[in-house]
């Protein structure tokens, strides 16, 4: 469909103003005119993770900007509470996969654009899948999924292959705050580098939930953290199971009644246990004393961060202007405030930081000899290293029980434990970062 479709006259008139001639601040590599338009419209392949509040906006913006080969991944189905802000969905779509419905909607409304949906988890896909894209945009509300995506793209970078470096544009909203950032894996600060900057998911003091609940959220937390394990034992709480949510909702409502608290609703229950209620929700509830629903707090501002993400995708794909370096934040709680800064890469980042070392040793080399070699290496100054592979512990210096359990490995050959080209993670108290070894044998 994409290549056969002929654009109507003037379709991209406004965008072409930017692409037809270089401006004073365009990159020297910018190819004004047909070259860049051809890349944007016929070659660029872009992946959007998430088709929720932010994802819907991102998909629409990308399609209207002129990207024509867009893929989207989302594991959720449409819930009635999504309809107010996830504007690609209608009442008839409730229960259907978000990715599929969003893709169909965009293709219907923006002729010539191909959107390929995948209804499932990002973890289902392998490196080869991610390698096919030019860039990736994340519009997710899950920290865990973003950490996975970030680590996967950092791991993908192969020094032998320039194409393996995929820029990651990460958008996020939380209550009245939003951010957009550009991550060039292994070059700029990554998602993991800034993990400690994040607001923690809302957690209430357990003593408050247990004794002196004051907010509907406290009752819901009580139901999920204390009451569920007490009544259901080891049965795992599945926050995607409506029956489980129903159980919590009933338990939380009963408790709320006992303490004369109003405002426990089904959607609030779902929001609290899935940890998608921004911290701001409870503060607002206290200050204003008004009841409010999950939908209104979550809908706040997807437009601005989404626009920022797509703007960056466009600039990176076309080189038509300098892209964001590297963190943009928007705070809309009290007026509108935005701030752009360069978040620094962390040397001790477990994903993109640390040192890596190619090490060639004899296949007869024992683990003990490897440790001696590391200790003697002048340039890394390592003392008492602990070693592991992604699947096994090779040797841990402490605690005593683990040292004892791994001690028999000391006399084994490294080649028995680590395959050729295998990775060994080294940690030590003297290393502020972690060291990864890539072992080859002679």
């Amino acid at each position, binding site marked *: 469909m994409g290549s056969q479709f002929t654009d109507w006259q003037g379709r991209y008139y406004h965008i072409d103003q930017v692409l037809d001639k270089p401006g004073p601040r365009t*990159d020297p*590599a910018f190819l004004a005119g047909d070259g860049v338009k051809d*890349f944007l419209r016929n070659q660029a392949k872009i992946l959007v993770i998430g088709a929720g509040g932010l994802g819907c906006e991102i998909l629409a913006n990308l399609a209207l900007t002129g990207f024509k080969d867009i893929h989207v991944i989302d594991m959720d189905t449409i819930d009635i509470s999504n309809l107010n802000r996830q504007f690609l969905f209608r009442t008839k779509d409730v229960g259907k996969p978000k990715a599929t419905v969003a893709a169909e909607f965009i293709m219907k409304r923006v002729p010539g654009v191909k959107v390929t949906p995948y209804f499932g988890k990002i973890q289902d896909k392998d490196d080869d899948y991610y390698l096919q894209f*030019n860039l990736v945009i994340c519009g997710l509300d899950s*920290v*865990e999924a973003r*950490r996975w995506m970030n*680590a996967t793209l*950092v791991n993908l*970078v*192969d*020094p032998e292959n*320039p194409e393996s*470096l995929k820029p990651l544009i990460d958008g996020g909203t939380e209550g009245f705050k939003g951010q957009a950032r550009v991550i*060039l894996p*292994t*070059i700029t600060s990554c998602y*993991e580098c800034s*993990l*400690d900057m*994040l607001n*923690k*998911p809302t*957690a209430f*003091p*357990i*003593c408050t939930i*247990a*004794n002196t609940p004051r907010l509907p959220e406290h009752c819901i937390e009580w139901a999920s*953290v*204390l009451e569920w394990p*007490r009544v259901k034992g080891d049965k795992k709480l599945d926050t995607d199971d409506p029956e489980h949510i129903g159980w919590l909702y009933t338990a939380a409502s009963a408790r709320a009644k006992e303490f004369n608290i109003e405002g426990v609703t089904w959607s609030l229950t779902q929001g609290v246990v899935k940890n998608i209620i921004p911290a701001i929700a409870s503060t607002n509830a206290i200050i204003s004393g008004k009841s409010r629903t999950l939908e209104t707090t979550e809908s706040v501002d997807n437009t601005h961060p989404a626009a920022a993400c797509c703007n960056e995708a466009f600039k990176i*794909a*076309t*080189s038509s202007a300098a892209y964001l370096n590297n963190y943009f934040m928007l705070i809309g709680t009290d007026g509108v405030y935005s701030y752009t800064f360069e978040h620094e890469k962390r040397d001790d980042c*477990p994903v*993109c930081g*640390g040192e*890596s070392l190619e090490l060639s040793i004899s296949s007869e080399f024992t683990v003990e000899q490897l440790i001696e070699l590391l200790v003697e290496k002048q340039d890394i100054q390592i003392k008492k290293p602990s070693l*592991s*592979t*992604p699947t*096994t*512990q090779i040797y*841990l*210096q*402490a*605690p005593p*029980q*683990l040292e004892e*359990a*791994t001690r028999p490995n000391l006399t084994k050959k490294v080649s028995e434990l680590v395959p050729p080209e295998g*990775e060994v*993670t080294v*940690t*030590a*108290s003297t290393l502020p970062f*972690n060291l*990864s070894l*890539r072992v080859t044998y002679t």
Partner: protein
Amino acid sequence: MIKIWSMKKNEDAAAKKKPKTSAAQIRVQKDLTELDLPSTMKTNFPDPADLLNFTLTITPDEGMYKGGAFVFSFAINTNYPHDPPKVKCTQTIYHPNVDLEGNVCLNILREDWKPVLSLNSVMVGLQYLFLEPNADDPLNKDAAQEMSRNRDAFLQNVKYSMQGRSVKGVQFDKVLVR
């Protein structure tokens, strides 16, 4: 498409392919191998190959809980250190900040958790609860009330509970080791 690779070449010519070891795994290995625990605390790994699930035994050498051995289970998920470890007391004990289900009231396990904290900080925090129970933040309300109202009766209850007797109709686990 911007030419990123030229930046890459200038900055870092060396190979830098990272292992598939997860960030959580690396962090747990670092935390565990750098634990600095007093002789009153000891970890135990039911499966030494599994670093994410283990127990910690605290044997206070002073205070009202002296003579007891208190066992906590630690469960660490793949989102560590963004998420705190899940910690529960495996015994039924009489303590103002531990309920009868084993839930623990320690701020750094929930609302004050930060990724810069480590397993060591959590363990030290747990031990502190046995030296200085906090009646202002109760999880076992009865115990907390008793502690602030009638300290002698509270101490007696602690003693009985540690012997495995019942206190006010609740049967406690025997935790005395001496």
